[in-house]
């Protein structure tokens, strides 16, 4: 219940300011445009690169979103109050992760048609399996990202440290998501590979929930 309250609070704050979602959506569009100029691709090559392109954009957008998650609690010492509140640490963490997940999913679903349009890729054919892959991988990004947002909240050069720590951890999951997305867009996906995303999510969700008290109390 407390987790839902925290998630609701974060989403409400975001809805009123729209600071990270606007930045994140426009950033992902800029990256999409940049990529299309960086590589002059024919149709075959576009399809072969599609999953990689899409997940690079999502990973960049994800870092922007999760970076704000705990950072927004720093002014006025809100984080101290949250930690002192009756809500347990894991509920604070889970609430924030759920809010980030909702925001990042929104950004991704807004960017997906733009991606299809710019690169002339038909993503509607395998939409539901694609949605499953996107949801699982996005949960992976947000759960690890929110945990590291909490870890780095008091670090000097926070905006710099978060991606340096986050991306190497996410690489195996991104490899899986890229392979699956490319496969789905090309119509030759191996659905059993989705196990990787499930394992990643399970490991890091449980680890983050278990360790979050150590992170928040310091």
């Amino acid at each position, binding site marked *: 219940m407390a987790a839902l309250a925290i998630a609701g609070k974060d989403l409400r704050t975001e809805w009123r300011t729209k600071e990270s979602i606007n930045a994140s959506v426009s950033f992902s569009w800029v990256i999409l445009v940049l990529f299309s100029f960086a590589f002059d691709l024919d149709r075959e090559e576009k399809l072969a690169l599609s999953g990689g392109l899409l997940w690079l954009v999502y990973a960049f957008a994800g870092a922007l979103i999760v970076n704000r998650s705990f950072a927004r609690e720093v002014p006025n010492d809100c984080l101290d109050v949250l930690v002192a509140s009756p809500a347990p640490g894991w509920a604070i963490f889970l609430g924030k992760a759920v809010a980030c997940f909702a925001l990042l999913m929104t950004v991704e679903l807004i960017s997906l048609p733009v991606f299809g349009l710019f690169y002339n890729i038909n993503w509607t054919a395998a939409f539901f399996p694609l949605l499953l892959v996107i949801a699982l991988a996005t949960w992976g990004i947000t759960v690890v990202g929110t945990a590291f947002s909490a870890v780095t909240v008091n670090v000097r050069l926070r905006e710099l440290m978060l991606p340096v*720590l986050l991306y190497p951890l996410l690489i195996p999951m991104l490899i899986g998501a890229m*392979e699956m997305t490319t496969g789905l867009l090309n119509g030759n996906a191996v659905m059993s590979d989705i*196990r990787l995303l499930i394992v990643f999510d399970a490991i890091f969700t449980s680890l983050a929930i278990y360790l979050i008290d150590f992170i928040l109390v310091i």
Partner: protein
Amino acid sequence: MREKIVYGLGVLGTLLLLWNFYTIFLVIPIDALQGHIFRIIFIHVPAAITAFVFYGIAVLASIAFLVTKNFDWDSMAVSAVEVGTMFTLVNLATGSIWARVEWGIWWAWDARMTTQLMLFLLYLGYLLMRPAVTEPTQRATMSAILSIFAAADIPVVVMAIRLHNVRTQHPGPVLETGGLAPVYWPPFLIGIAAFLLLGSAMMVVRLHQESSSREIDSLRQELHAI
């Protein structure tokens, strides 16, 4: 006493390493397929195994720190990570040289190479973050958490590179399958022992430095309080 241990470990490790170099370069027979470059395996693989041992120590020390809040464990974790990262670099560099000769390229995005590189990057992030946090308890806790996360990532990396469409080029395992000729075992095992001894000597030196720097820090804080 501490100095004697460092010198003892260091000298023993160096002697073993020199003797092993002699065996590797002058005694053991040449590999039929690869030529002389195969000798690099006696540095390459022991470096990887040594790095794993030190990363293992780092994770255990990190968990111990979170449980006990004793800063000696934090010192041990960071010393082990530094030594482990150095050996990972040795492993990556020797592997790359081997690949240049055998494959004609310095780097291939192969399964095991990617895993090692990920490990290197993860722990590089660990070493980068430490100076960015000034408060000692905070620094130690964050480092411990990061090191546990990094360790949890390794099985997933191993899983990721076995996916269907990910390419692989690394030579198959020869150790577990018994493909290593008996004559090659002694230099191989001695190589591991030498690296472990040298690594331990470095770790003890770093442990000493860490506890000194903690002492200096607390003295400085005391001075500020006055």
